[in-house]
């Protein structure tokens, strides 16, 4: 009891300092009015509704899998930004920069955080999808948000796929070679795909190894310098921007569709 009293006193003293008051405008939210203001008046917290269904707060229901996925996205954004200080996406430097990151950078766990975080995010996003399915939370009125979620799942895999190439080691180049070889089998659009050889003009094939879907993806006939640059830009800028936009839509729709799902 005494301990609690002194804790309260300490808390009181801290929140009454000028510094604290200048940062947190509402003080400790100890009344319902202040609890509302704490959420409404904070740029991060106002993504939430002021009140939430009690079932939506329970771990046993949500598993926090979606929240984990979002948090891992933030971790990956942050560690990825740090990695961008050191990494140059050219075949001359890329691998050497990886060695430097491993050997020269002090407290260097950001590559580890980024790699393991990426694996973890793929897994949490699957578990989130599984939870949403098993609770039937895709049913009306949440059909559209399930669709946004499916696109976000695909974007997560694409983010991981494009990031796979960047270390420019044997694992990277051959995993991307195996993966992108699929593109050359695209019906009509890949040069080994069904009916692609039939697309010809005056006997000249239009879909060749130098003009098909795989070429467009890699910027060349093999996984080389252009592919590295393309994957770098896709990985660091293009896909994260789309994913961030769709996440905003996803969270917004969670609220507009009536908050975290629960029995009707």
């Amino acid at each position, binding site marked *: 009891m005494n301990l609690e009293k002194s804790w309260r006193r300490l808390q009181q003293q801290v929140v009454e300092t000028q510094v604290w008051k200048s940062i947190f405008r509402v003080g400790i939210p100890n009344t319902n009015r202040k609890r509302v203001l704490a959420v409404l008046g904070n740029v991060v917290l106002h993504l939430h509704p002021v009140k939430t269904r*009690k079932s939506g707060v329970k771990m*046993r*229901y949500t598993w926090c899998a979606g929240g984990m996925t979002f948090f891992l996205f933030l971790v990956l954004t942050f560690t990825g930004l740090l990695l961008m200080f050191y990494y140059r996406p050219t075949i001359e430097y890329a691998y050497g920069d990886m060695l430097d990151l491993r050997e020269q950078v002090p407290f260097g766990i950001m590559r*580890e955080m980024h790699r393991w975080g990426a*694996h973890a995010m793929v897994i949490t996003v*699957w578990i989130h999808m599984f939870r949403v399915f098993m609770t039937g939370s895709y049913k009306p009125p949440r059909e559209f948000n399930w669709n946004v979620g499916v696109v976000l799942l695909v974007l997560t895999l694409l983010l991981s*796929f494009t990031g796979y190439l960047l270390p420019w080691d044997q694992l990277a180049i051959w995993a991307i070679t195996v993966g992108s070889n699929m593109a050359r089998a695209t019906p009509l659009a890949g040069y080994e795909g*069904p009916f692609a050889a039939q697309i010809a003009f005056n006997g000249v094939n239009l879909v060749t190894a130098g003009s098909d879907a795989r070429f467009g993806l890699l910027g060349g006939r093999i996984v080389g310098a252009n592919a590295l640059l393309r994957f770098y830009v896709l990985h660091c800028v293009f896909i994260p921007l789309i994913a961030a936009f769709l996440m905003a839509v996803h969270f917004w729709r969670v609220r507009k569709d009536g908050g975290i799902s629960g029995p009707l």
Partner: protein
Amino acid sequence: MTAIKDIINWLASPAIAVTLSMVGLVGAMFCKPLWTKKGGILLFATLIGGFAFSFTDPNFRIVASMPDNVPILGMLFLVGFFFWYAMYQAHLNDARLAKGLPPLEKEDSDKKVFTWPDLVYVELISLIVCSIVMILWSIVLKAPLEEPANPGAAPNPAKAPWYFLGLQELLVYFDPWMAGVVLPTLIIVGLMAIPYIDTNPRGNGYFSFRERKWEIVMFCFGFIILWVVLIILGTFLRGPNWNFFGPYEYWDPNKLVPLNNVSVSEIFWVKWLKTALPAFWLKRELPGILLVLFYMGALPGLLSKTLFKRFYEKMGTVRYVVGVNLFLIMLAVPIKMYLRWIFNLKYIVNIQEFSFNI
């Protein structure tokens, strides 16, 4: 010991492993005692025990302890745990629903709590736990870095990123345009179509099995068997030249596997009619084309009158056609696998002229 390992190696071969996991999964979903706390402990103990036993084997250790395979093992445990946990809660609710009570979530969902502090604190705790796990994991396990990229020296086996290994496994049974383009596209389309096909209004917002048996069995079949099990197979059991290796087998690059697969056209014309293959592709491939047309074109109609009559009446024509086609394509994946394992069938339709092989 070696006898047990030989049996497990044999059980892990694709035909048997996929059969066992299919029968096991669907059977388990209807086996109520598994979805209690005792059943969970039993399942978990089996998984841990099997894993601990396997880890004493040097060949298993080589593959399982590669740093990039650690998350895949983690996924195996996490997906296993959450599958059990979802089914456990579903059965708790089912017992309540059978008695006419509302699901467990109902009581809670009628109440509302203030986001601050109730939700914000849960989020903060999750965030801290997640950070600690990530930091510890990053300190303990260094991110691997292999030799510098060399476009001239392909490793054997060359594997796609791990989450695509289920699709790479399908390359054994399908041409790349199917395994790498059409099927992934249909997975995405199929997932997106789920809320529009599923007209069952029950089971919205709570765990339940008895109210949504069909949906859950089909989804778990796709997710657990065709996605997760095939990833495990592709990661841990496919070695050099994409040959199969049991969990306790050494990845011998010189292992020889005879390939003598035949297509439907060869079976029909050469084996049955004892004539040469017709020169014209349409005549040659007619048996296979008719099979595919029957499967995709006539079967949905036949099923709507017989086995799926109930669904057809409930769903209406458009939903039924889309749903049953997606279902049949999903089912075609294991069907093609079994045709390969039993009849050494290579292609049902084999039109090399257009690179169009199914």
